[in-house]
């Protein structure tokens, strides 16, 4: 490219960006910065039970869970864990239905995301997840049709991670939850050898004495130190639930993975007259704020996601379609 063209491109970018006034919210930055430092110190400081130890811990929690059996906190009521089991009963019922549900017709799942940010920004977008793993994206029906017709999936650096997250959920539906948890947690980790030690669900990480002193010295609350593996499983499970929204197996796997985390609170209710289940992850999982996921109590389909940490509410509409129909605009 010639220097002249470089200069013209530079001028064009300067013109686009303009000089829009911006005043950072210093109080928010300081508050958020302190919170981030706390999380980093705390998570890094954890003694980090090795994965073998984590496996052992989970094995205790899910004793008797073979490749076909659900984890104990998704299984039949146990006097010692009756409160947990009672809370998770709707999840057990849902998983029981989903693992025997027939695969739906079509070869792709269409997801309309109606997103409303706390700053007032509203964004509606279409995601089309093909059963072969491809993702098509459009801001309008027409744009989405064009992408499918032209066979232009989005690809991108997250594609491999998304497929791994879906695979983890599929495995979790009927397989060993320990292995599924590991698969889900590391879905986006390019080199698992560099990943930190994984922790069992709900296990409160122990904090190194040096770091504990550091937290105390900086007036940070060590009691809010969370479980980083739970955080990864929560985040990646949401991705799997979107990408695999059309698959009862994926939905069952996600429900099993989320249901085994004690810090995920399960409540039943109704939304628009429809029985729903809400799974809420508190600050110990999100690292700050509460994120909640609302799914259809009968089908496990994604309905709504509310995130305090990101500041967004997303309403989902999910439908099974065929790529051919979408390419022709028939959806």
């Amino acid at each position, binding site marked *: 490219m010639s220097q002249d*063209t470089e200069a013209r491109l530079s001028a064009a970018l300067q*013109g686009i*960006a303009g000089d829009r006034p911006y005043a*950072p*919210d210093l109080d928010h930055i*300081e508050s958020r910065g302190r919170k981030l430092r706390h999380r980093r110190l705390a998570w890094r400081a954890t003694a980090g039970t090795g994965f073998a130890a984590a496996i052992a811990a989970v094995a205790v929690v899910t004793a008797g869970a073979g490749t076909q059996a659900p984890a104990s906190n998704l299984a039949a009521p146990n006097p010692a864990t009756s409160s947990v089991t009672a809370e998770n009963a709707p999840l057990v019922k849902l998983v029981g239905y989903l693992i025997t549900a027939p695969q739906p017709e079509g070869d792709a799942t269409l997801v309309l995301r109606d997103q409303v940010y706390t700053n*007032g920004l509203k964004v509606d977008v279409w995601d089309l997840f093909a059963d072969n793993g491809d993702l098509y994206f459009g801001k309008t029906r027409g744009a989405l049709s064009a992408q499918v017709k032209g066979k232009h999936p989005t690809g991108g*650096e997250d594609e491999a991670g998304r497929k791994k997250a879906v695979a983890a959920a599929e495995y979790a539906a009927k397989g060993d939850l320990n292995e599924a948890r590991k698969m889900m947690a590391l879905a986006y980790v390019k080199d698992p050898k560099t990943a930190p030690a994984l922790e069992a669900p709900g296990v409160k990480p122990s904090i190194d004495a040096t770091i504990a002193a550091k937290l105390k010295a900086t007036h940070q609350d060590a009691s809010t130190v969370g479980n980083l593996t739970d955080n990864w499983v929560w985040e990646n499970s949401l991705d799997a639930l979107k990408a695999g929204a059309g698959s009862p197996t994926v939905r069952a796997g996600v429900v099993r993975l989320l249901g085994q985390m004690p810090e995920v609170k399960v409540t039943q209710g109704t939304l628009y007259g429809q029985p729903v289940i809400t799974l809420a992850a508190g600050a110990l999982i999100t690292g700050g704020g509460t994120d909640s996921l609302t799914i259809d109590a009968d089908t496990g389909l994604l309905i709504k996601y509310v995130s305090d940490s990101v500041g967004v509410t997303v309403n989902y509409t999910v439908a099974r379609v065929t790529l051919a129909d979408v390419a022709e605009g028939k959806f």
Partner: protein
Amino acid sequence: MHRTAYLLCGDWYLADDLVQETLARAYSHWRKVQRADSPSAYVRRILINESRRSWRRNRNVTVHPDVDLADITAVDMSDEVVNRDELLQALQSLSARQRATVVLRFLEGLSERETAAVLGCSEGTVKSQTSRALIKLKSVLNRGDI
């Protein structure tokens, strides 16, 4: 930084959030920022990483140019007129790394070496990413020389 954030994500509201988060992360790593060979490069790197994280978290939500139609008054590139919205769309169609390379090189005016330092890659990678990005910009904009 705000302008860079805007070109990385394509939306002023999201750019506000991106800069806030970047500054908060810089605050939380303040000692590292102070000790860095180039504090500004360190903070730019946080911004680039945050824009990628934001994309992953929100999945394409950033592909939402909010250029006011009244504001699409055209940028004079010699004797031709470039639609701002079109160029912004083209920029958003690039991969995250290519977009970051273009923005750092041609908005912030960083050298190839400085861009490589911010992105944590070699100068050769910056050259190849720039070249590929410009080919895509050409095809998207269907222009002769941009």
